[in-house]
């Protein structure tokens, strides 16, 4: 497992699809390349879809930790998108 320091944290347990991903995406856009975002998200649809969507944007998933209370913490490292022109 990578060593990482969390630069920013967000909580998306209060919103539903697609605002879950939108909030995560906006938070990532505001980070610098290589910075790390921690995202608290709900079990079920969010945990199934948000990590996948973030991966599709080219970012690196470092870790998904089960908080044991129906929520997870997703740790993501920002990767500047090469495909973006």
């Amino acid at each position, binding site marked *: 497992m990578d060593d990482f320091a969390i630069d920013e944290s967000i909580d998306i347990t209060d919103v539903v699809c*697609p605002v879950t991903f939108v909030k995560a*995406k*906006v938070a990532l*856009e505001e980070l610098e390349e290589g910075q790390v975002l921690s995202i608290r998200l709900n079990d079920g649809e969010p945990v199934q879809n948000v990590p996948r969507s973030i991966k599709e944007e080219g970012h690196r998933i470092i870790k998904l930790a089960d908080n044991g209370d129906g929520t997870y913490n997703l740790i993501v490292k920002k990767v500047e998108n090469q*495909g973006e*022109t």
Partner: protein
Amino acid sequence: MAFSNEQLERYSRHIILQEVGAKGQKKLMDAKVLIIGAGGLGAPAALYLAAAGVGTIGIADADEVDLSNLQRQVIHSTPDVGKAKVLSAKESMNAINPEVTVNTYQEFVDASNITDLIADYDFIIDGTDNFPAKFLINDACVLSKKPFSHAGIIRFKGQLMTYVPGAGPCYRCVFREPPPPEAVPTCRQAGVIGAIGGIIGSLQAMETVKFIIGKGDLLTGSLLTYDALKMEFRKIKLPKAKNCAVCGESPSILKPFDYEQAVCKL
């Protein structure tokens, strides 16, 4: 600038797009677009740009809503008949998106006011219905170095092109000057199918959005024509004219001027 939860939800389908994202949405929210003509073309363009969250939208039109407008000018409703078009348009735009600042100009756009009018805007949409206005908008935008979207619709046909300073031809490069008045069909003879305005005006909104977010290819150097009856789109490549009277090497048009307007009263 941070987005509110409500903004994240309103613009979620934009922000999700890789080509837009939060950055693109912010560009839209900071953008200023002027729409000249609140008619068949201006109506869909204004509605889509307001919905998209373009921060400031100016709309210029001297007319009032007429019952015969409603067949195609979807921004106006039956209770708006008799109301200033710019006011009716503003109400519809703000009903869709109260965040958008709508500036209204209830005046004829001519050589005396167009330069001041376009000065505050990043992009201009030509939604007018006559040749003198189209040449006026072209000349003023070229001279003020403003990008704009030209479009025209008649019967079942429409066309559009995009001018960006320094990239490709202007409208006058392609069409030189207005046709003689007797060659232009009168309003009575012409007619226009309502949805053609929806198609071409929406394409103008699309060009505007792409220009603002800086993604994709614009219709610079190309005229897109659409024939609804044949269901055919054609994209015609067009060069810049070296001898163009306004954007050529030795231009003779140095300030906007008005052609005489053919009078049409039904």
